[in-house]
């Protein structure tokens, strides 16, 4: 049994924002209901987001992808445009939970859960995504890169709703990849997640992104490693050094799934592989 709570089911965005102060937002519930049942969470009033019109919509306007605050992982997979508009995110969606969880879990919920193992976050970081926040008095946009302030803490104020996320669809000569390493192929918690973006101009890399999951208190970008690549031809040696740098930038812990040491090792291996692949794909 779930502990008792009040359940608000506002019918639109305005009402939702009005009800927000003091309440806990309930999207797909795949984190929140699990936490309530395990008594890790003691929210007294839940506000369900399922009745907001158009909240799941995905739009692509002028090369910019905008997903709603209610867009689910399943929605990403079912949208044929996403394969090009967010290759790494689609790759993450394919290894995310099972069908039912994918239909319930929202991207915004995944981002807001703040778990370092949240699988959409490395791809979204690698795409330079922005988070759109709205409260009853106004809206603002925060780069996802600045969103997290620590383990499971973020910049969202308690009366704000994430109404969506957006990013620029990768242009030509850009490769965007994600790999999830887990203890099982289907439906498993990530041991190490790596997303990379490489934009190539001839034999130079003009921009690189490396985002790492499950190896620090938040998902984060390995910026020193990125810097090593920008403006350079990505020879194998350089790729290897950057991958090693990414490893050094991480701060994984030991847990039931893997040791910190193994995680570090895998960051190196996976970052190297993905960069190499991305460099080739971006040609």
């Amino acid at each position: 049994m779930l502990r008792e709570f009040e359940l608000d089911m506002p019918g639109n965005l305005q009402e939702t924002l009005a009800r927000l102060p003091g309440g806990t937002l309930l999207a797909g519930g795949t984190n929140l209901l699990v936490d309530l049942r395990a008594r890790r969470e003691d929210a007294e009033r839940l506000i369900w987001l399922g009745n907001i019109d158009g909240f799941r919509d995905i739009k692509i306007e002028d090369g910019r992808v905008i997903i709603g605050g209610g867009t689910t992982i399943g929605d990403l997979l079912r949208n044929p445009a996403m394969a090009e508009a967010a290759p790494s995110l689609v790759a993450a969606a394919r290894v995310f939970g099972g069908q039912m969880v994918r239909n319930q879990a929202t991207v915004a919920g995944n981002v807001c859960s703040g778990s370092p193992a949240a699988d959409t976050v490395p791809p979204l970081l690698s795409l330079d995504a922005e988070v759109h926040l709205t409260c009853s008095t106004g809206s603002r946009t925060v780069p996802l890169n600045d969103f997290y302030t620590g383990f499971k803490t973020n910049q969202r104020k308690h009366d704000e709703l994430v109404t969506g996320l957006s990013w620029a669809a990768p242009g030509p000569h850009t490769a965007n990849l994600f790999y999830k390493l887990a203890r099982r192929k289907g439906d498993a918690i990530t041991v190490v997640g790596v997303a990379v973006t490489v934009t190539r101009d001839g034999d130079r890399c003009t921009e690189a992104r490396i985002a790492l999951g499950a190896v620090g208190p938040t998902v984060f970008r390995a910026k020193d490693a990125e810097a090593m690549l920008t403006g350079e031809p990505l020879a194998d040696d350089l790729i290897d050094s950057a991958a090693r740098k990414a490893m050094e930038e991480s701060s994984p812990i030991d847990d039931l799934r893997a040791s910190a040491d193994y995680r570090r090792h895998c960051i190196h291996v996976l970052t190297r592989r993905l960069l190499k692949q991305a460099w080739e794909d971006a040609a």
Partner: protein
Amino acid sequence: MSLEKAITVEINGVARELSAPANETLLDCLRRHGQFEVKSGCEKGDCGACAVQIDGEAVDSCLTLAWMVEGKKVTTLEGLNDADSPHPLIAAFLEHGAVQCGYCTPGIMIAAEAMLRDIPDPTDDDIALALSGNLCRCTGYTKIFTAIKQAAEVLRAGGGDD
């Protein structure tokens, strides 16, 4: 006590009114109202035994609150076993021995049926992806895959509609 509310919902084509408190999961609510084909295996989204469709989309009913289905259509395995036109998945599961203890079966059929509406000619990878949230400890999934492929064939040939 949480407030009880009456939910209007269509279950397997039949309009029903279910009363439920705010904190009741759809899983508990459906079973309390006699839909025993919806199974409970973990109550936290890990096993898929409780899968149902809401307006055609497969979800874990253990991670859904009963109130969320107000005004919606809920389909359980019972709904696929329409007396006039049972879903071809059922015959295929029987023919291929895809059922052992049967506890995972209702959830797997629900997940498979939803996939077949999206992907009429699924590959093994498509099926694997569609079923990765449905644990089965008995069958090793092999006969389930075979049965789903056969049902897909029957559906593509226009079967199961008459």
